[in-house]
């Protein structure tokens, strides 16, 4: 396999040999051990302080270690909120001492505020590295009727744009780059081709632990061709048994439910089951839509009416079973995920003039996987393998034509026309995927470590149309193989002030495409191959107590996807010569945290630059034909800033905002000068901000507690088309948006039960998104949460 060039192997061997040498001749000792509670359960995030100076945090299995210790006597103290502290003394010579702590519970110190600050400890750990990362903690949104897309859009630099209500298609932008330039991971596994029922807008916030958003520069462990960034969703929490669930109901026939249960026995066997159910009629009011005559198509009148064909439903089940805390594995389990959805379409994604009344689609995903994780003293190993089938069905079999008055008209009973396509369609695309991931870290010593990552991804796509015999899209199956390998070297300075990382990523792509060429009917076989090497580095420096300066860089690639290379077998022809998109991504940032008594302040600012080339875009070939080509060069630049200010236990404020300029940098298009060279790429917001006010009006120590959340979002108006072209008074503008949400939540018996009432878009302001398509107005939701076996 030619995954890495010779030089990488040499570098790698060199590093390994250093490791070996350092390891053999070091004249130091070490202390390691485990922190557990009285039941023997590991305690994560416990802090171990050595000689009242340096400290470490225990991992998810309660383990900690101190390396490179000179001979002598050490005083250790284990602390964990909710438990009494414990001190021990230990003598160290040239050996490894094992010291275990069993902490006794002490409920008097435990309240929600402190638990939250603990989670922040983990966040701080990641934030100390040079990566530009934002962490979205699910817990603080649990009382609100939100999906993951609703929550992630509150992050600076992130835009989520939806074409309607629940289940509508969405586009997520990270620092101006969007679509398949952003990669998603579920517990570290790439989510590519997982189907429309497992996307971010399906997941309720209650099923996950957190989301990590990497902007521009992505660590090697998240193995994929992420050009603009990656989002990792974490769901796994194997600390204890639990059962929790949520039900929310509200306007537009919206219902969301989730259930999440886990049982762990003393022997380390565990089983987890979780699931969600979503439904919405999405029948919100549309203001000023045009009604056209059904037969002749002439304009009749402008009305305000409710959407009538836009319902969405999705459900998911996930089950895991395995063992933890064994000699051969820290964690080993099998998992199954099954999900389905059904979506109706009220209108095309780009306008509300044409109206549909029957067109819909269905999705079904089945995934089986095996997961393994083990930490040795110096080596961490994690691997998984996944096999799945993802089906998508597009159903356009109606002979009726609709308008906004919900009137319908029969074209003619024998018309071959569907609502959307020229011929009725019942098209099923089946993807079979096999994917495996191995990541490993080797901790050379306390200051240096190497991380390796390998991802393999195989896709077989087949299409079948039950109705349209002309539709031969993917009739012969097509294969795509993607292999990814990455290696990074992480370094921490002696005084822990400086952290640096360098990495190299290698992408190998090959495909076998057999396609019946539409234009001449010939069967063409082609095997495109692409090899690319990306690289980058990160650096963070602690300039003062709790002040970090950070920078990161990556030469990033995105390989063309199957659809772009294969075309659709109809009017989008294949292009085996398609090249990867590439981008030079740069971040400069500063992070400051401080505390004074009860007050906590965190401020962060980041400057981002993205020099992107060869963006793949659909271009005309001639007649009805088009083809994906490498056309666009784009430059994004901007700043984002956030401020989290906790004034006292009763009141906190989160603010963030982003200003960005996304500039077209393609000099010529179709051998002609590009009239928009250096113009701003339109239809993307350039100034937006979020705020969140959290109020706990009463004493935080009480068992029952009231919380008030007030969320606001501002997006400045922007042009749908090219800026500077056309008379401004005639230009399509997506107006300024300012949307406010409020939630009142009451938690009973220390969060065992939680009842909340939300009003979204309180002032019923007009909200628009992509292509000026109206979004829901004021809506109300009730949400109930229970949390037992906690």
């Amino acid at each position, binding site marked *: 396999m030619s995954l890495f060039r010779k030089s990488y192997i040499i570098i790698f061997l060199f590093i390994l040999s250093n490791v070996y040498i350092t390891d053999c001749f070091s004249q130091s000792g070490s202390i390691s051990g485990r922190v557990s509670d009285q039941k023997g359960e590991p305690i994560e995030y416990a802090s171990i302080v050595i000689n009242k100076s340096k400290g470490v945090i225990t991992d998810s299995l309660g383990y900690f270690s101190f390396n490179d210790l000179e001979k002598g006597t050490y005083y250790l103290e284990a602390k964990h909120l909710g438990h009494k502290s414990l001190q021990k003394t230990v003598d160290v010579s040239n050996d490894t001492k094992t010291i275990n702590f069993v902490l006794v519970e002490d409920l008097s110190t435990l309240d929600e505020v402190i638990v939250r600050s603990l989670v922040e400890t983990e966040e701080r750990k990641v934030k100390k590295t040079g990566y530009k990362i934002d962490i979205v903690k699910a817990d603080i949104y649990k009382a609100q009727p939100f999906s993951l897309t609703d929550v992630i859009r509150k992050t600076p630099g992130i835009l989520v744009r939806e074409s309607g209500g629940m289940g509508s298609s969405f586009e997520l932008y990270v620092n101006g780059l969007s679509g398949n330039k952003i990669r998603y991971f579920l517990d570290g596994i790439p989510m590519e081709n997982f189907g429309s029922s497992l996307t971010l807008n399906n997941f309720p916030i209650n099923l996950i632990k957190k989301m990590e958003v990497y902007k521009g520069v992505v660590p090697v462990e998240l193995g994929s061709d992420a050009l603009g960034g990656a989002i990792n969703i974490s769901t796994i929490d194997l600390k204890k048994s639990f059962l929790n669930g949520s039900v929310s109901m509200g306007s537009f026939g919206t219902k969301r439910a989730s259930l999440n249960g886990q049982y762990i026995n003393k022997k380390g066997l565990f089983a987890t089951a979780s699931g969600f159910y979503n439904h919405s009629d999405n029948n919100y009011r549309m203001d000023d839509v045009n009604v056209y005559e059904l037969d*002749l*198509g*002439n*304009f009749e009148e402008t009305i305000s009416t409710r959407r009538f064909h836009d319902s969405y439903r999705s459900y998911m089940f996930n089950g895991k079973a395995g063992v933890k805390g064994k000699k051969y594995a820290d964690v080993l389990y099998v998992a199954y995920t099954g999900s389905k959805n059904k979506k109706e379409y009220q209108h*095309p994604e*780009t306008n509300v*003039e*044409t109206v549909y009344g029957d067109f819909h689609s269905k999705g079904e995903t089945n995934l089986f996987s095996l997961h393994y994780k083990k930490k040795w003293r110096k080596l961490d190993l994690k691997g998984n393998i996944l096999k799945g089938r993802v089906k998508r069905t597009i159903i356009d079999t109606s002979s009726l*034509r609709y308008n906004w008055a919900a009137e319908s008209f029969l074209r003619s009973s024998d018309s*071959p*026309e569907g609502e959307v396509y*020229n*011929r009725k369609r019942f098209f099923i695309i089946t993807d079979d995927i096999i994917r495996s991931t191995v990541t490993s870290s080797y901790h050379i010593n306390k200051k240096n470590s190497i991380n390796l990552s390998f991802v393999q991804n195989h896709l077989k796509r087949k299409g079948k149309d039950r109705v349209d015999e*002309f539709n031969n899209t993917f009739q012969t199956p097509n294969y795509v193989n993607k292999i990814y390998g990455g290696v990074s070297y992480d370094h921490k300075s002696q005084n822990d002030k400086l952290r640096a990382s360098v990495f190299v990523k290698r992408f190998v792509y090959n495909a076998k495409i057999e396609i019946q060429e539409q*234009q001449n*009917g010939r069967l063409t076989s082609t095997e495109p191959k692409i090899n690319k090497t990306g690289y980058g580095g990160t650096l963070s420096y602690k300039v003062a107590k709790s002040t970090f300066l950070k920078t990161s860089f990556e030469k990033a690639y995105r390989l063309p996807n199957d659809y772009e290379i294969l075309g659709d077998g*109809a*009017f989008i022809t294949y292009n085996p010569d398609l090249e990867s998109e590439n981008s030079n991504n740069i971040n400069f940032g500063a992070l400051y945290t401080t505390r004074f008594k009860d007050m906590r302040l965190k401020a962060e600012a980041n400057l981002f630059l993205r020099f992107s080339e060869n963006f793949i*875009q659909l*271009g*005309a*070939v*001639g*007649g*009805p034909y088009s083809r994906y080509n490498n*056309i666009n060069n784009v430059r994004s*630049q*901007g*700043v984002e800033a956030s401020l989290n200010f906790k004034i006292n236990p009763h009141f906190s404020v989160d*603010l963030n*905002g982003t*200003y960005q300029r996304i500039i077209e940098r393609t000099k*010529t298009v*179709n*051998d*002609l000068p*590009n*009239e*928009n060279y250096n113009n701003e790429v*339109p*239809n993307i917001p350039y*100034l937006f*901000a979020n705020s969140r006010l959290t109020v706990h009006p009463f004493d935080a120590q009480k068992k029952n507690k009231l919380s008030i959340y007030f969320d*606001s979002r*501002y997006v400045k108006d922007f042009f*749908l*088309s*090219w*800026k*500077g*072209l*056309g*008379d*401004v*008074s*005639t230009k*399509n503008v997506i107006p300024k948006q*300012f949307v*406010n949400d409020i939630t009142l939540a009451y938690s009973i018996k220390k969060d065992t039960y939680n009842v909340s009432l939300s009003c979204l878009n309180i*002032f019923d302001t007009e909200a628009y998104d992509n292509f000026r398509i109206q979004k829901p107005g004021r809506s109300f939701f009730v949400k109930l949460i229970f949390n037992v076996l906690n």
Partner: protein
Amino acid sequence: MKINSKFSDKIKTKALSVFLMAGILLSSCSGDDDAPVGSNPDPDSENKSRLVMQLFLNQSKPSQTYVISVDDIDGLMSGTLSAEGKGIEAPSGYRFGVPVGNSSLLSFGYTSSTLNCISYVNDGGEVVVSDKPFLYDDVFQRFTVSEDEKTVLAMEIPQGAGFLQREIYFVDAEDVRVTKKIKTDVWKDEVEGLVAMPTGLMIRGNHLFVPYQVHDAEGKWQTLRPNKAYMAVYSYPNIGETPLKIIEDDRTCNIGVNASMSTLIKTESDDIYTLSCGAKGAGFNPDPATKPSGILKIKNGETDFDANYFFNIEEKAQGKLFGLAYLGNNKALATIITNPEVGDLWSAYNTVFNQKLAIVDLVQETVSVIDGIPLFRSGYFATGLFVEDGKAYPTIVAENEVAIYQIDIATGTATKGATVEGRDILGLMRMDEGTKKNKK
């Protein structure tokens, strides 16, 4: 809502101050200033008539059309034609432009997301959009204006839709409303799986002429019977579901090319002339035609091809005819693909610069090539040709430059005019001041 707006202003101020620094930082390193905004038609101008056109951008994401105008011919002959700070932004995508006499420009969307027709009129020297559009299902590709200029016929041709019928829309040019729709196959052969792909529309007296190519029904866009000219003849205005008759001629190949509005010519004496191309680069697939490219004639009052007339362009110009637009006095402006063997399928539209212009005399059957124009592509007069005072104004898409040229019909000389900041000029026309009814 007062509370809301107050609150929003507060937040806005906050957000502004947060980003002020950043804004200064970024704009200072960018260097390009905002374009001047707003169009300023001269209020003192006596001649309120304007030259109006659709400017179609080259940049395609998103592809966009702007309706711009200039005061007079000088505006076409100097400087640049651009939409910078002026022009009416049209719904997105490519749009056919159909001039109706000197009164209005009908604009038909060709992108699947904006299949609507809107109209532009001249309101006191200012071009404005007239009223609400009408919608249609599938793209229109063929248009013609009735002899009284009151009706526009637009033909909807479903693609890849088997034997789904074509539909002719009668559009009231003034009200921009559809008055009736006629379904017709034009021609088909269900056994062989063949359908007609109409390539033009022409009204003359009581007849509607519809030339067509023979395509596969699956919509692979294969021209399966290229070596014959086919034309359906309908009665007009009472168009029936089936044509009165179909006429054929095997001296040349299929009449018409994709997307062109310059396939049929009607002279002052009501003779009709037709264009036959047959080149691979013009969409003849899988094989180009073997019959020569040229011009056929249907004499005034007749509904058959003139057996005594065939203007063999291929022989006389050593190339294939790709566009044909009428100049008056039996003369026409012809686009000729100079080396038809060069280039892939559809290359004449998009990739190869190998076309030139010539003035052809339809009666004398002479070809005189116009000098002084670089080789170009896309010369199919997608939405007609603007001719005024003995001069024609084609848009020439040459390598690295799109420009308007002025062709002197009498002398056959070309003068380069304004450069175009875009990919094409569609529907260039003279638009006189409209009646009140036309106004918004």
